[in-house]
């Protein structure tokens, strides 16, 4: 066994475990609402603000948090598309599988959001 490789592996494992521990925290309403909005096809900042009714001061930091936790991913719109629409390129956010799971786990805590169409959520696992 290469000791250097083993120690790298150890560092990375510790890091992953720590990240998981951090992610295990319960999501706040704003985070769930944003995940919910994303699940419903609202894909960029303004859209999310409009659909959730949250302020931009909440939405952007929360998006950042969700992204660093690995729940959502983001990508810039292609410049061509933006040019055709005559506007600056937008940054689009997308739910990742971990985000979908987190949303499904958190939804029953926020019943107000439960009118979400079922098809967008992963099927609950049967025991």
């Amino acid at each position, binding site marked *: 066994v290469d000791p250097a490789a083993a120690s790298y592996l150890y560092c990375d494992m510790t890091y992953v475990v720590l990240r998981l521990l951090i992610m295990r925290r319960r999501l706040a309403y704003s985070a769930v609402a944003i995940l919910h909005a994303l699940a419903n096809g609202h894909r960029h900042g303004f859209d999310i603000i409009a659909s959730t009714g949250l302020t*931009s001061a909440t939405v952007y930091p929360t998006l950042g948090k969700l992204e660093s936790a690995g729940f959502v991913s983001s990508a810039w719109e292609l410049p061509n598309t933006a040019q055709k629409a005559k506007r600056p390129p*937008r940054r689009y956010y997308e739910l990742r599988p971990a985000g979908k799971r987190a949303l499904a786990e958190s939804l029953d805590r926020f019943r107000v959001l439960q009118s979400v169409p079922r098809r967008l959520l992963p099927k609950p696992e049967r025991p």
Partner: protein
Amino acid sequence: VIGRPRVARRRRVDSIFRGLSRLAPRWRRDDWLGEWLAEIEAAGATRIASLVFGAFAHVVWLWRHEWSIDMIGTDVRYALRTILRRPAFALTVTMTIAVGIGATTAMFTIVDAVLLRALPFPQADRVAAIWPRVTFSPHELDDAQRPRDAFEAIGAYSGWGFTLTGGTAAEAIDGARITPQLLPVLGVQPIVGRWFDATTVQPGRDRVALIGEGLWRRRFGGDPAAVGGRLMIEGEAYTVVGVMPASFEFPARRSEIWAPITIDPSTGDYNANFAQLIGRVTRGVSVEAANSRMRVYADELHRSRPKEFGTNFLERAVVVPLQSQLVLTVQKPLWLLLVAVGVLLIIACANTAHLLLARSGSREGEIAIRAALGATRPRIIRQLLVESLVLAIAGGAAGILFAHWLVGVFLPFVPDLPQISRAAVIDPRVMGFTVLVVLSCATLFGLTPALQASRTDVHAVLGSSRGGGRSPRRARIGRALVWAEVALATTLVVSAALLGRSYVHLTAVDLGFAPDRVLTLRVSAPEFRYREDDQLRVLFDDVLQRLRRVPGVVAVGAIHLLPLTPDNWNPGVRVDGVPEADQYQPDVNWRVVTPDYFRTMGIPTRTGRLLTDADDQRATPVAIVNDAFVHAVFHDRSAVGQRIRTGFEAKGTWTTVVGVVGDVRQHSVDQPSLPEIYRPFAQHPLSSLRVMVRVTGEAGAAGLAARAAVAEVDRDIAIADLQPLAAVVDHALGGAKLPLILSALFSTAAMALGVIGVAGILSFDVAERRAEIGLRLALGARPAEIRRQFLARGLRLGVAGVAAGSFVALGVGGVLRSLLFGVSPTDPATIVAVSGTFVLVIAAGAYIPARAASRVDPLNTLRT
């Protein structure tokens, strides 16, 4: 169609956001701006104020995120990988820090346990020693209790050796005779049973005892029914009334029996000194205030009863916190050692800083690339600081293990104090201290290299073909660090050398007796069988006779208090025919000895004669005095034939001085001898004696035979403290050993680090100048020249450091003064010797890189 005003408005809004973007972290700036510009576009330039607020909140979040655990975690991961890439370096640094932090933690554990932690009693800060250097008769309690408003309770105690009989063998157990008021003073409740009540001090009701948890488990198997049970102490049945918790170690460690002091109203001699007083200060009254009230009262006592309470008493009538009284002698050495260990830690930090600094040369390329990719200076500094933090934490973890071991090494040198037996462990409190130390170390040794490395000039490094050029600034800082290391180490080594010389002086002190080949044992007669003086005389006569018959025994004598111990019996003395005003006021030491004591101990006779067997109860009362007595009491006039009297003899009985013997150190090695009176045992029998046995062979070997010889006389005789007299001397020197051994340890480590520092900086120098050396060798320079050059560099640094350190040592030597014996804190010989040695050691260390320099292969270096 977009109108002109709207365009102008958009431009204004854009410029606001462009301005705001400057606040965002640099590497996120473009993303941030793009996102918000798209946002403004989508929002159709409405609600601009709300958007600005949102954008600002986003900036704040980006910064917070930058410093979040998550991101630091990334840094830590990166740091770990960087460190593990060079395991040898990491190991060196970790070990250096571990030595510093380990020693600091261990020393703090001891200081915390002895000095900082409260005594194990509730609200221990209110417990005070009253008149700590005066011993009392129980009757004086009343006198001491007079300023009642200052104290909630005052109790008296006297350390006592009990002999448990009735088992298979007599067992000697330490404990105390106490008054019932001691409970409210100390505030500790028995875990089973009850404390004494006030009636137990009356004769006839006093056969009760409290036992310690340890004894309870040993003798009664931890059975609660032990309360009310019987315990045979010196042949008398005592009723056990309660069990004290194991944490109750009063007045000393391993105290396990507490029995009441009996106050017999029929006797009332103020000079029958034996108890010590402690009190609990009233809530709201400070110990200082209690002290001043006690002073006022002591003045009154002195005025009303000047005979009993002389000026001598006035000086000592003080009230001090019990803790400070207990730690009086160790306080200063411990604080100084903590400072010394702090200096060692700083040296270790400086050493690490200079290692990191030297290594940052080889990391310039990496840092330049990071900077070129957009890492800002604070970001790079943070990354490097996280690296030093990781190193410090690794060092701290190793240090704690090291400290755990060191505490075990230190503890035997710390005197027996009630508060340390359980407290001297590495607990959360000590851990908290260690964490603080680790954090400050990481900053201390990480900041300079980090600041230095973050200055890396991107263009210069990435532009040149070979990274890691030579930075004069870095070299200067490195030299300064090593210089400081050597200077600090010199200070430590000088202090240790002074303590060492002082110790040598102490061991050379003439004790007044010859401790070699003398065995000492405490022999206590069971009082229930030997109540009469005659019985005691016969018993001890028999014991000493039998000991004399043990093969290899040369002489046997006995005294009731061992020299070099704090125990004392000290009455006032009056000389016949001297007016009261001219009498010697201070108390004098008073001892009971058997006739052969002086010969056994090798104490020389000055004038007159020694005691003989004829000086018995039927003969005239006689006494031997020491030189100090003749000097102090008789002002060097002839003492033989003079008549003296102390409070220990019946009123009106005069004792004739028949001889003068040499002084012995009675209480400690470094304190001069006090005036002392020796009275013959036959005229003043006691139930417990310290028997001295001089043997031809090794003292320790005679132990078993001596024990057997005593047991032959009576199985109920308790034998305790069987040890060579040399061990007693060793123990007396123990107080001086603690600072000596620890400072020797610390200064050796400091010296090693200093040498490593000098050698290290030279090695880096050699490595950096390899090409130059190769060229010079190729051009005909002789290897010896190169060697001399590097050696001289190292020596210059060493000499500068040692010189500075010697000056510092001269300056700070004063604080050592009270710990030194027979050597001046600015002793030039010590300083010169230490400096010379240190310079030689540095030269030896510098020789290794210097030799490496001279062996550089010119062909090899020129080719690359």
